[in-house]
């Protein structure tokens, strides 16, 4: 992918969305890699009967990883992610096994653009949305981009 330059970014610009069909396969893979074996991310009976949740829910850390992927894909290898924050306000339910229909859409837009100590910085508002359009994970990001001049 072509490198993104600070010069080409405008406030209000949208970040290319990052979409994922999140199923129990993605949750289990991540549970293993992150050693995050928590019943509300693994067991539907437990989630519904004991934790009183609608279903198994997607772990916040994995939603964070997807927002991070969106930023990294967009800013490119010469861009540097400086800060990313996300608040887990709503629940995301994984889709059915083998489904390829996205259940989570990561989006964002540029809110600020400035130079600080010689670094060409941008700030963004980022979030994840369910396929019904509900924002479940608002957040923000700061990155340094290469400049043409």
């Amino acid at each position: 992918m072509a490198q993104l330059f600070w010069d080409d970014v405008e406030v209000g610009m949208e970040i290319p969305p990052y979409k994922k069909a999140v199923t129990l396969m993605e949750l289990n893979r991540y549970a293993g890699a992150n050693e995050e074996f928590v019943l509300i991310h693994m067991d539907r009976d437990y989630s519904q009967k004991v934790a009183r949740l609608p279903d198994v829910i997607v772990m916040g850390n994995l939603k964070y990883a997807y927002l991070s992927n969106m930023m990294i894909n967009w800013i490119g290898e010469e861009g540097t992610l400086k800060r990313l924050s996300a608040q887990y306000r709503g629940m995301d339910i994984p889709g059915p096994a083998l489904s390829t229909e996205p259940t989570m859409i990561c989006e964002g837009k540029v809110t600020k653009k400035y130079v600080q100590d010689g670094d060409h910085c941008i700030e963004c508002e980022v979030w994840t949305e369910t396929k019904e359009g509900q924002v479940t994970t608002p957040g923000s990001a700061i990155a340094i981009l290469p400049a043409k001049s």
Partner: protein
Amino acid sequence: MTQESLITDEVRAIIGVETVSPPELIEMKAIKDYARAINWPDPPNPLHVDEEYAKKTRFGGIIAPWCFYTTLGRSAPRQRVPLPPPRVGMNGGNDYEYFLPIRPGDMITTTSKTVDIVEREGRAGKLIITTSERKFTNQNGEVVGIARSTGLSQY
């Protein structure tokens, strides 16, 4: 009858107390497994799994995905928070600041502390919101990043 707050002086006493983990070896396999998991079913970012590719980048070799911070500091001595076990515990949010990449073979020390504990009366009962901070230092004494996290305990 007014319900008593769960945040006693004993609970409050843990705020600001630092614990330090033993240095933790960052293994190549852990980096690669993590990189695969966060992209699955798409291929992982080669910067985290392909040494030949990574060598040609400005990083000069494989680095861990930035969000790898979620895995760090598990071996830190656990501070016992004197609260009853919640009905359900959830992650409320992550706020990570990145200063330097983490590389395979690094020895990372995690310094953890609880920053704040507050209680809210929610529709479903009491909610305890715990804010904590982990600071990651590599074998050269450089702070590579800081992770602030919010934990939600529902009673």
